[in-house]
């Protein structure tokens, strides 16, 4: 993401730990307090940085909350690497997925009804608060013909749906399971 608080610098949190994310959250809130409340309003600024005084919650209060309870919401970094079976098609060979940070690649072959099918996917992993989407392109080869198109993999790590990937692409609709 582009960090608006820090002049639009590009920051990728993908490899950060929860503690590192929480620390940046706290430091950024302190910065916002200093930028929003003038130094002359010392009590208001101090309350903003700390626990909010008698009438509100401050940066420290928010930090304490995520520090103590954030693990309930924290999602492990998405890791799609591995072999994924095609749900509902026991004859179909598994998809092989590799991942290097945000770059995800997949390769698969058609099932019993599509012996000549070969699929290849390359995409970028984008983690959102509610889920993870891997946007990219698919190359399908069938009977010597190749087609290229856009394709997405929907992934929900850190939830009860962690072991499922929904595939949405041209001529490709599948649900994968570990």
């Amino acid at each position, binding site marked *: 993401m*582009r960090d608006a608080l820090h002049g639009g610098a590009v920051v990728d949190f993908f490899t950060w730990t929860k503690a590192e994310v929480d620390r940046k959250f706290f430091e950024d809130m302190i910065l916002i307090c200093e930028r929003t409340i003038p130094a002359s309003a*010392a009590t208001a600024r101090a309350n*903003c940085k700390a626990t*909010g005084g008698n009438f509100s919650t401050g940066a420290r209060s928010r930090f304490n909350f995520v520090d103590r309870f954030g693990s309930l919401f924290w999602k492990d970094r998405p890791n799609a690497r591995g072999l994924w079976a095609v749900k509902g098609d026991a004859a179909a060979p598994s998809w092989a997925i590799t991942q290097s940070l945000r770059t995800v690649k997949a390769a698969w072959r058609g099932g019993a009804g599509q012996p000549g099918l070969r699929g290849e996917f*390359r995409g*970028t992993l984008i983690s959102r608060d509610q889920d993870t989407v891997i946007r990219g392109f698919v*190359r399908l080869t069938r009977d*010597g013909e190749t087609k290229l198109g856009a394709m997405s993999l929907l992934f929900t790590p850190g939830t009860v749906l962690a072991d499922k990937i929904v595939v949405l692409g041209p001529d490709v609709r599948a649900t994968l399971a570990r």
Partner: protein
Amino acid sequence: MVMLAVAFVSAGGSAAAQTIWNLTGDWRGSAGNLMQLRQSGTMVTWFARSADTKEWAHDFTGVISGNSISGAFQDRPGYQLHNRGLITARIIDDCHFVITTVAVNGGSPTDGGEKFTKTSCSAPQAWPALPDALLPIASVANGCGGGEASAQGKFGDTSTYRDSNINPAAKAYTVNFREA
């Protein structure tokens, strides 16, 4: 010299104008059979051979009419089969055609079905650049609240601070923590 060039272009243009198709090239069938096809105007010739390169090989001469090819083939010696006959095909586009009927040795036409694809059309396309992972924060974060990522303000985004801990009427400052 100039006149010769003009005459050549004129003759070539006249022949090419008779059909919209451009079929010349190497082709591969859905059954794996291979074909080298040459087109000149509406005239088509090809040399085709079986996928195993042993069962058969033939030469074909035919013409294009509309989106159809029709003509005669003759198997070459030196292979397992020695037939002659008629073939018709339906052109789909410059990259694809389907054999529709085959009549062998004077017999009745039988259904073809093999689909041929020009090799140059099936060459793998280059991968496009991957989508950028750098996105507006509103597209990935939900701020100080639950639910899906959005730019909408959430209940916990803002707080108001009085410049006094004992006077509730002291000057208030509202702070938006969304960017954190």
